[in-house]
């Protein structure tokens, strides 16, 4: 059973399955709550690797039907973009800069 403790769900922020299961048992039963509390999904991949795993764990621990679990929102930019590139975007019509 020890192997389960060390199973990493979020590689970016080093969050383990055990930590997430504990959080769900404490009452953090939405993906967004778990993200805010333990930070899975806040690293460079923005939850691409762990979001579905988190939903699966919530379903396993709470027994909630999967369609009732709201997935994590995607936040722009979809992939990490360097500051230098973004700062060179020129003013376009309708933009307030």
């Amino acid at each position, binding site marked *: 059973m020890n192997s389960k403790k060390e199973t990493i769900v979020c590689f970016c922020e080093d969050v383990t399955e055990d930590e997430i299961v504990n959080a769900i048992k404490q009452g953090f039963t939405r993906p967004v709550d778990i993200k805010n*509390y333990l930070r899975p999904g806040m690293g460079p991949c923005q939850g691409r690797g762990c979001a579905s795993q988190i939903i699966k764990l919530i379903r396993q621990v709470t027994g909630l039907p999967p369609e009732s679990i709201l997935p994590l929102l995607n*936040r722009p*930019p979809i992939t990490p*973009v*360097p*500051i230098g590139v973004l*700062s060179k975007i020129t003013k376009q019509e309708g933009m307030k800069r």
Partner: protein
Amino acid sequence: MKKRAEVVIIGGGVIGCAIAYNLAKDGVNVVVLEKRHLASGASGRCGGMIWAKWYPIETSEVMARVGNMTLNRFANLEEELETSIEYNIENTIACIKAGEEKECEPEIRELERYFDTRLEFLEPQEIKKRAPYIGVDNYESFGGYLHAGTILRASANPFLTVYALANTARRLGTTIYTDTEVTGIIVENEKVKGVQTSKGDIQTNIVVDAAGAWSADVARMAAGLKIPTRPHGEEAIVTEPLKPLQYFPGISEAWGRQTKSGQILLGEETFPEQASSYSIETTLDFLPRISEYLMQLFPSFGNINILRQWAGTQDITPDELPILGEVDEVDGLILACGFTGGFCLSQAVGEIITDIILEKDKNPDIAEALSLNRFEKKYREFPGRWYYMGVHKKIKAF
């Protein structure tokens, strides 16, 4: 769902949870109602900065006391709640542009006086020496004031703070209902009698409006009470983690800090013409604009990635001061709203509102200066920010 409570708090953000915690500590039976999840509004979208805010108008003495109260309480909060909220004292250099120094000088002196401290002035050359990554040359800089090692500039993780306050309040007997929307406030003979929610009614004689951006809507449920708060947007970005920067530069255009994980957080209030909106959607304009600020602040950081952007909405009053305490029109309705920078003030507000509810009367001058009565009735319909009308000077970034 509970049928009765001594106090019902509407809003499960940092303000609502701080009030619940302080009341529960005094043995009051509290219910907190939250429309979505804890810290789902401005609390979970803020920068987590704990700064001395002060206001160059007649209320500054009062606000300095509120500021001192909140800074000291935050400094001891981890010990009090017996859990980590990632409280950290920051080292920052408040950069001042050439030409602005005359305007800033009296404000700096006032800040030093109110908070009994002394800020060191750094010449541009000295800033370059101490923090070579700061783009001093991009600013025609006059220099900067060093905030180091004092509780005047600190930060905490807002999520952990809200969860810690909520969990401690729960341990002390508070009930928190999430996913529970308030649909009405029952008022009979100008007295609060209860709250109607999407999950049933609760009887109570005291209701606290801590609904943040939605505070005016909640107040209107209490016999149509009008309060001059309106939603006010902010946007922010976060970068990938960097090594710790020894000093973080402060500029007046944006707020920012480096988090414990090493990421740079930078945010800005949206323009006033976009401000009156509940929208928490991010805008495309913001990314290039904030990247430009970042490039000016840190000219060598062009290759650092921005991971994500988000937006939030808080509520603002015409004079940018919160509205706290009882109202004449409805007995039992307590306001705790109108914060711009509510995370900062939350710990003082928890204490002040608890004192008002329990009639301890410890801070009568604060309660009076921040009451709804400071607005004449004709101004309760939000006339726009007073400083645009030349009454209120724009608050600086310190």
